[in-house]
């Protein structure tokens, strides 16, 4: 048992060192839901350089045809993009990282609550994977929840910031939908509580 645990920690350490090698290991957005084990780094404050995303993941207005009303959030997990609908054929697009939880479900939710610099209470599954994590961490820079969180309905799922900007574009082990802090702040300021959120997954075979 103890040996097994050491093995896991070692494996995570290996994954961790890889994750710092930024863009090179970042899978293209078309890769699907193959989840990379990247442990949380509570307390880590990224540099402004790290916060600068690859061009395709930067916040930008794009063509997006939809029947959803302006103001609706549409998340495409497979593409690693979150769209905020602006009109019938345009949206503001944000690059996202998708956590294991983000792949669990598709469908409709509403933003039930918003918070800036939220506190973090790692769920028990995460503690099991990474026993060294704190049981509670107050909000602020270095908190894995980042600068803001939008809570989705009555679920445990949320759209939140991150202190690990190099996980944008990836499918990672923990978290739900993560944006870089400047993006999640931008989104926080644009959408009110009650905003409709549509989540779309890749088709199953």
């Amino acid at each position, binding site marked *: 048992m103890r040996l097994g645990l050491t093995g896991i920690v070692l494996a995570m350490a290996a994954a961790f060192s890889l994750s710092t090698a930024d863009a090179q290991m970042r899978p293209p957005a078309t890769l*699907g839901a193959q989840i990379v084990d990247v442990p949380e780094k509570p307390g880590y404050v990224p540099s402004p350089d790290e916060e600068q995303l690859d061009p*395709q993941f930067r916040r930008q*207005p*794009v063509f997006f*045809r939809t029947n959803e009303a302006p103001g609706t959030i549409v998340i495409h997990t497979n593409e690693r993009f979150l769209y905020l609908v*602006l009109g019938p054929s*345009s*949206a503001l697009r944000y690059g996202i990282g998708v956590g294991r939880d983000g792949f669990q479900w598709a469908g409709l939710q509403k933003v039930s609550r918003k918070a800036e610099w939220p506190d973090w209470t790692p769920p028990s599954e995460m503690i099991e994977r990474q026993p060294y994590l704190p049981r509670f961490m107050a909000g602020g820079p270095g908190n894995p929840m980042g600068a803001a969180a939008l809570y989705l309905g009555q679920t445990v799922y949320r759209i939140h910031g991150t202190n690990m900007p190099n996980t944008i574009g990836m499918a990672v082990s923990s978290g739900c939908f993560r944006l870089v802090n400047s993006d999640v702040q931008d989104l926080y300021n644009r959408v009110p509580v009650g905003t409709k959120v549509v989540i779309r997954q890749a088709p199953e*075979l």
Partner: protein
Amino acid sequence: MNKLACALATAGALFATSLAHADTLADVKARGTLKCGVSQGLEGFSAKDDKGQWTGFDVDFCRAVAASVLGDAAKVDYVPLSAEARFPALQKGEVDLLSRNSTWTLQREADLKLMFAGISYYDGQGFMVPAAKNVMGALELNNSKVCTQRGTTSALNAQDYFRQNKMTLELIELPTVDEVVKAYADGRCDVLTTDVSQLYALRLKLAKPADHIVLPDVISKEPLGPVVRQGDDAWLNVVKWNLFALLNAEELGISQPTLDQALSSQKPDVKRFVGTDGSYGEQLGLTKDWAVRIVKSVGNYGEVFERNIGTSSKLGIPRGINQLWSMGGIQYAPPIR
């Protein structure tokens, strides 16, 4: 952007000769190669790489047809054609198929006696601006200096668009594309306008491409697609359903990495696609595994797009309007059943 259309009208007369024999599918099978008309070199769409191999979005379509008809994506004889030569070459039977960024228009079907098999790429005129301007859409471009190439429809479209939306512009028309790019790079204009696919290609020529964005607005229609001769419906069907197979594969989640999984899938529409149910390939004059061979050779539509022109390629064109209808775009293929 089609100044040459008039010159081609006369070529329609040549069509009469090709009617005498119209079983292109049998010809291609007997010959063992597909003669595919492509461009003379357009980065991302059809161009020779440094090893002399043809690559690109349009080239992959040729490869897909060869894979489904001949069982081998490599059995393509590429015929590079100028804008002037492309339609006469098809009419005279020098190529079986044109896969060469050609816009679908009425004149090309009704007058030139050709048939477009579908729309593989929705192009259209757009605008590029410096990202630092923080512009969200073309309607925010009032009082802009707009650079474009002289004598193209782009200049007319831009003027129309600004007038219709009660905005003013100062149009700066320059004789060549290179001069347009230079004027934009030097800050002589705030906006550059031409077809969106070209905007992305031109962006590569700027010192810092990522500092410039292409706005989401598309103000003209330039639907590009593969073209065949009129009078051979069976061949039109083969080419058309090749395009539909690429799109359906993506919609069904069938890609190169998931192809093996798809072969043992129990989902009815996946089974029809891979040929474990029905005889759809045979109905086209092909084999049961026709669509499997397409995906095995080139991948699905999304894979072809990303590899050649998508955000992970040099060109970096987002899917945008070419996204599937179910994902916010307008690419839509009828079902295989």
